[in-house]
């Protein structure tokens, strides 16, 4: 069995973060290097012939711990000062709960990353088609084509895109991620961990969530857990009125959580 760090090191040599295909072979061996229990934990549950990947965030379960946001950074080699994934807080301020009904204090979290819109405004305005939707419904950025005009950032209603304003910097001593870093002057965002999906693994934010608030799956597979939950409990999309048809859904809390 190869040493995990060696496998990681060999992965860094190549692979396009957006296509993920080149790196897939080596990455598979990295997955294989994991203990069986870890592999099983992250496996995608059901998959149709033509998958359309989506995510469900159960806001009743979310505890606002930022684990998903932090692991996203290391998985995707997100540079200092940038986040692909943030946990927004509904309250007066980050640590000040809002006052709800009957004077009870309430705190709600809204994990926010790319919504992978079916009708993506960012894709429509990109002058070079650097932003595109792949066959499986994932909105991706081809860093090689990006000219850095940031039109997509102006067009995104969710404000989830980040720009490499300067040369990307990493925290001292931090290992590189599982995908190639993007160059200065390009826009980047959540890729739904496209490099993991190819190997049948869920995105790292899903795997890492200690509250199991994130559910990932194939919206086209009738038996997938995401579809069952959407069917049973409904689900909201952010800024639905904009007509962007996000593939990220939010489950509202069934009971209000009071402090």
């Amino acid at each position, binding site marked *: 069995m190869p040493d995990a760090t060696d496998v990681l090191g060999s992965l860094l040599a190549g692979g396009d973060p957006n296509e993920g295909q080149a790196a897939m072979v080596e990455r598979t061996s990295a997955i294989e290097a994991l203990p069986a229990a870890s592999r099983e934990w992250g496996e995608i549950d059901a998959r149709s012939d033509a998958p359309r990947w989506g995510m469900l965030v159960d806001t009743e379960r979310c505890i606002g711990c930022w684990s998903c946001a932090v692991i996203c950074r290391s998985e995707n080699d997100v540079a200092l000062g940038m986040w692909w994934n943030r946990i927004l807080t509904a309250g007066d301020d980050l640590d000040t709960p809002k006052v709800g009904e009957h004077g009870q204090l309430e705190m709600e979290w809204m994990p926010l990353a790319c919504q992978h819109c079916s009708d993506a405004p960012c894709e429509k*305005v990109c002058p070079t088609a650097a932003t595109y939707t792949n066959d499986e419904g994932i909105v991706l950025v081809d860093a090689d084509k990006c*000219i850095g005009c940031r039109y997509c950032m102006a067009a995104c209603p969710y404000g989830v895109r980040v720009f490499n304003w300067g040369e990307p910097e990493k925290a001292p001593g931090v290992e590189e991620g599982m995908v190639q870093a993007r160059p200065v002057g390009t826009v980047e965002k959540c890729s739904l961990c496209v490099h993991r999906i190819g190997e049948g693994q869920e995105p790292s934010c899903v795997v890492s969530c200690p509250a199991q608030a994130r559910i990932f799956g194939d919206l086209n597979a009738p038996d997938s857990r995401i579809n069952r939950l959407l069917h049973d409990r409904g689900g909201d999309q952010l800024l639905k009125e904009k007509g962007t048809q996000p593939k990220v859904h939010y489950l509202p809390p069934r009971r209000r959580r009071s402090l």
Partner: protein
Amino acid sequence: MTTLAPPATPTSPPAERRGPRYAWYATLAVGLGIGLFSYGYQLTGGLAVTGLTNTVTWGLYIVVFMFLVGVSAGGLIVVAGSELVGSHRMESLNRLAVIVSGTAVAAAAVSIIPDLGRPFMAWQMMVSPQLMSPLVWDMAVITVYLTIAGIDLWILTRPKPMPRSLRIMAMITLPVAVLVHSVTAWIFGFLIARPFWNTAILAPLFISSALVSGTALVLIIAWTVRRVSSWEPPSHVFQDLAKLLAWFVAVDFFLLVAELVTAFTSQTEYHLAPLEMLFSGRQAPLFWGQLGFGVLLPFLVYAIPKLRARTGLLVAAAVLSVLGVFAKRVNILMPGMYEPQINLPPGASGGVPGGGFVLDQLYVPTWVEYGVVIGIGAFAATLITIGVRRWVLPQAAAEGADVEDAGDDEAARTH
């Protein structure tokens, strides 16, 4: 902000006074130097050296781009418009007007480059254009507009007048001019993410503002050239431009009010937030200043015959109009940028190491951005200076005398 205004200083002193002319050249060289140095600095450090962030992703560069595209309207529309109504009153301004327009659109094309994160990849827009993108349309239509300005200038600098060609060009120019400003407006107007911009009135508003700033700039430059050279247009042209400006300012103001009133009466939050920013918030000084000094004051000068008869006052009003339109561009861009649709703590990531999260972003341009804009201004002023010296002054000098020679000389240079 005054550094951003197009050149209001002498464009081309007469040959007999070399001192001021060389001083002007030196000023241009310094301006270009500042621009190149600032841009070089930005190229080494990336756009991190600007005041832009993941919330305010567009700033001064885009304002200048909008402004310059707008300014390019004036000259060509004055020429084409009077041509189409069969008026010859503006004829003496033809060459100057086309030079100002061509310069403005060339400078607009240049001004978009520093906004790109990877300018060396810009060719991607040519080899793999995404035809749905208004940015691609704008690139196409700006190229066409620049070509039209070149053809117009060529026609105007022929030794023999070519009224038929000029008429045909006028018929092409007007729709393309409308298109240039509309497409530039649609870059912003199509974005559902920015309700403040997402309004059908944006394109008409861009055209009306363009007419104000473009015509005012032609007036300013015509006055400047007349002051510093022997070129002498008939005195009525300034009055004619002033009358036009009165109409343009009035229409521009009307369209703005129509938009603001509609947005305000809707009383929906995403409409009100940017308006609050304009009426009483961060942008209020610029907004009310623009209405007072950039609209009302100049309008009085243009509209009242006694006032507009005083050329000095008229030019001052035109300068205020140009600054007012610039302020208007800022007031269009910033509220759209400042008001994200999802605005919850802790906000957007700052974008640079140690940047943290920012919920209520304040955008302040850095010296690098001002430097680059100074460079763009100097570039435009240089083009106008060259154009005026080559095509306007010889015409004035040769009036009646050897027009043929001058014309041939110019013909050789244009190609």
